[in-house]
């Protein structure tokens, strides 16, 4: 040690390379495949939209001329302010309503919590059109209220869109707020009480700060859902044009693809902005709950319990009413004139009929399988195969959540229906619908998978390596079984969304690949509202059935593969 130790500058910057093994080759291949998929089906199509917004319809470069026209044509430009207005209004209403509901479900001893939870989740099983249909059936020109009271509230337009979005977005906000309210430290409440804080002061100083990140998240999620939604404004918007319907009008109605691309790019801005701000806010989140936290056990508070019971009952009744109206209207001769029972509306004669339902189920099942596999392998590649590509791949993986479905659909037209491109082979197949769904809903699955992987001991792969077991074997034998609950949740998420989505697929369905949600739209367009309601009922029923089957299957799966988690609870006590 008489020799002087080297300084930082004397140590080489490069590290001693390991010899490339077969395993490394597989790792690199996985990274390359994942990158290729994200490039081909996400980045490249989006760039196409961007590029096409700078061209005229004959393919000549015209710079920002499309944008100038967009902003200077009052009829089209109005869609921007309209979109912002309904989205902000829906956001404020939804988050406020969902907060009370979430609080009741997590922090009170209100009875029938399970029932209220299930009812609130119903909108997840329906296309966003359905909420709008129900509003029309009740408040529309031929709605039951309008007919019986003679009072027309003017539901077509902003009012109807906002109301439909509130119900459509309600479960999304509720889930986030419930998660935020569920984790807290009871010791904070004990401390507040010992310091003499009353209920209001405790709420303002302990409850609200504890869930502020959840509130912000819920706001952004609802805003993004509302501004990118196409179904509700299409069904109930009337002449009130928002950006999503404007894209549809430009593309489907006027065949004006470049203007569609222009509106798409503008629609991307608020969605991406909301996403970026949300990420920045969440980054500042610190662990409020530590391992020493005590869970909060709600106490009996008669006024709060019963007051909130009434509140929840009111909201749940509204939600239940929506689906009751849809169900009844699909089963009667002619709502609201003839309430005689009939099944004739289920005898579909347009828009692909039952074939579209089978297509939807196939697409949803394959989306669930492919989406789950890709999100977990992708998350694994990003988390565990640390390369220079990890950062960009992560960014691309979280990008889809801020890409509106309409924009993705249009991007796929540009990419997969381009003359002379080999990618055209995909056009008009079920495969392109599956791919579009997988990409559209990629982010939530990817983040769920990432969280599941991060919760696992980082040394699992290292133990495997030291024992000479290749990483893919450890992935299959250890990572996948441990992550099974997340895997099931993610596949369920993909399935349900693929069943109900409209915006991402409306541009790319083709004769032979009709989908149920698109059929609902077409039937409604054609004036067959009862058939549209009937198809909606079948979509909802499919979703609920699959959810039940999953639930039953999971009970079996849990008892067989997750035995170790029960052991911990049962026998961990005496040891600890």
């Amino acid at each position: 040690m008489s020799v002087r130790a080297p300084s930082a500058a004397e140590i080489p910057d490069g590290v001693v390379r390991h010899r490339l093994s077969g395993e490394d080759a597989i790792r690199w291949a996985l990274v390359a495949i994942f990158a290729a998929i994200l490039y081909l089906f996400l980045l490249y199509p989006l760039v196409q939209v961007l590029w096409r917004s700078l061209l005229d319809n004959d393919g000549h470069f015209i710079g920002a001329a499309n944008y100038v026209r967009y902003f200077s044509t009052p009829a089209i430009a109005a869609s921007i302010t309209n979109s912002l207005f309904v989205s902000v209004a829906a956001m404020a209403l939804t988050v406020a309503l969902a907060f009370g509901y979430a609080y009741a479900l997590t922090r009170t001893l209100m009875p029938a919590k399970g029932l209220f939870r299930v009812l609130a989740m119903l909108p997840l099983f329906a296309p966003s059109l359905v909420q709008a249909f129900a509003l029309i059936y009740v408040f529309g020109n031929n709605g039951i209220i309008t007919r019986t009271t003679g009072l027309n509230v003017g539901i077509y337009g902003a009012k109807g869109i906002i109301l439909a979005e509130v119900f459509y977005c309600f479960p999304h906000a509720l889930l986030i707020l419930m998660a935020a309210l569920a984790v807290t430290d009871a010791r904070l409440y004990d401390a507040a009480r010992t310091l003499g804080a009353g209920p209001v002061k405790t709420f303002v100083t302990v409850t609200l700060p504890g869930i502020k990140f959840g509130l912000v998240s819920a706001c952004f999620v609802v805003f993004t859902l509302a501004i990118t939604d196409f179904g509700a404004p299409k069904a109930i918007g009337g002449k009130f044009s928002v950006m999503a319907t404007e894209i549809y009008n430009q593309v489907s109605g006027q065949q004006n693809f470049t203007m569609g691309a222009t509106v798409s790019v503008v629609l991307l801005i608020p969605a991406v902005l909301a996403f970026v701000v949300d990420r920045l806010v969440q980054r500042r989140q610190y662990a409020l709950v530590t391992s020493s936290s005590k869970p909060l056990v709600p106490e009996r508070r008669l006024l709060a319990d019963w007051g909130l019971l009434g509140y929840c009952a009111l909201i749940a009744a509204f939600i239940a009413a929506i689906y009751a109206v849809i169900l009844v209207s699909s089963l009667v001769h002619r709502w609201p004139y003839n309430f005689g029972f009939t099944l004739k509306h289920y005898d579909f004669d347009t828009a692909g009929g039952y074939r579209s339902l089978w297509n939807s189920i196939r697409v949803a099942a394959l989306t669930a399988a492919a989406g789950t596999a890709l999100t977990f392998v992708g998350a694994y590649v990003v988390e565990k195969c640390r390369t220079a590509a990890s950062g960009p791949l992560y960014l691309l993986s979280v990008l889809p959540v801020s890409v509106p479905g309409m924009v993705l659909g249009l991007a796929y037209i540009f990419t997969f229906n381009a003359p002379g491109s080999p990618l055209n082979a995909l056009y008009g197949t079920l495969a392109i619908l599956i791919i579009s769904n997988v990409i559209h809903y990629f982010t939530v699955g990817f983040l769920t998978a990432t969280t599941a992987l991060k919760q696992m001991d980082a040394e699992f792969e290292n133990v495997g390596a030291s024992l000479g077991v290749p990483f893919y074997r450890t992935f299959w034998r250890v990572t996948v079984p441990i992550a099974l609950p997340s895997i099931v949740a993610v596949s369920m998420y993909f399935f349900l969304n693929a069943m109900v989505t409209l915006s991402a697929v409306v541009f790319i369905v083709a004769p032979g690949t009709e989908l149920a949600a698109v059929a609902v739209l077409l039937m409604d367009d054609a004036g067959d509202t009862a058939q549209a309601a009937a198809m909606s009922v079948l979509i909802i029923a499919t979703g609920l059935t699959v959810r039940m089957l999953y639930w039953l299957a999971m009970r079996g799966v849990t008892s067989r593969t997750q035995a170790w988690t029960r052991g911990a609870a049962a026998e961990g006590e005496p040891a600890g």
Partner: protein
Amino acid sequence: MSNEAAVALEGIAKKFGGYVALRDISLSVGAGEFICFLGPSGCGKTTLLRIIAGLERQNAGTVRMAGRDVSSLPPALRNYGIVFQSYALFPNLTVGRNVAYGLETRRTAARVIANRVDELLALVGLARHKDKYPAQLSGGEQQRVALARALAPSPALLLLDEPLSALDARVRQSLRHEIRGLQRRLGVTTIMVTHDQEEALAMADRIVVMNAGEVEQVGGPTEVYRRPRTPFVARFVGQMNFLSAVAAPRSGWARVGAVELRHQPGFEAPPGGALTLAIRPEEIAVGPAALQGDNRLTARITVVQFLGAFTRVGLTVNGEGGALLECDVAATAFAALGVGEGADLPIALAPEALRAFPAPGRAA
């Protein structure tokens, strides 16, 4: 070492960005040896272990195992077993399947694997827990499963990364003996990382004391304790009193305040130069025992702390503002002295126990 070293490190250096984690580490581990990397957190000991394991890649230097350069080999080809601080047991596999994990890929017959698993579980005393899941075991039992899993493929080298730090004190004590006994019986070369000096002293054949990315001293437990080469080692391993001193004209003597003390040979400063003297609390003689011998002083008792088997006595020498010393006296011996706080006490700092180091801030 006469025969080939089991592990030989040459000039290992590692940096993370501009932060240097390891500077030029060279080290040789003999076959069958139990080596501890000991040091405070951030000293680079775990990084060094991970470089040996191939889980971290060094910026410079080579790693040899049994004479073979493994620097460029991925972990799977290096032939070692490892136990992590978290154990990293696979929670979804039973104890038996965990232990079998490294055997199942080696084209071994199921019969042979089953026998080997039973043998190892018997070795760590967990045969009856074979079909349980890790979460059903106590921390100490989990630790032993991890050990059995690492040893199952009969690796040439066993790496232990703070294997006992997650356990409570009593379990830790008994596992120390168990791991050490197992290692002796199997004769497997073992490198353990720890920040617990007591653990290192109790278990290791040789201790590598590390600080700030460098090796401060390599030696047997007694050697490191008795003859720390640097003030850092003296402070980190065991308790140590330090006294600022000035070299006296006579060689081997130093002045602390008004008194001149004789110290161990080893370090010499030029007369008038600053140096540091060091003595362990249990090496200070007090009471009648301090009346003979060199380096006798009178100290005042400032604080008395009863710690069970012994009493820790805080002393000042040379009056107010003088040097502070801590001295450990057997509880019965201290009671026999019949003194308390504020009393004066004769003490002696035996010259053979009084070590000399360069004053802080001077290069070695």
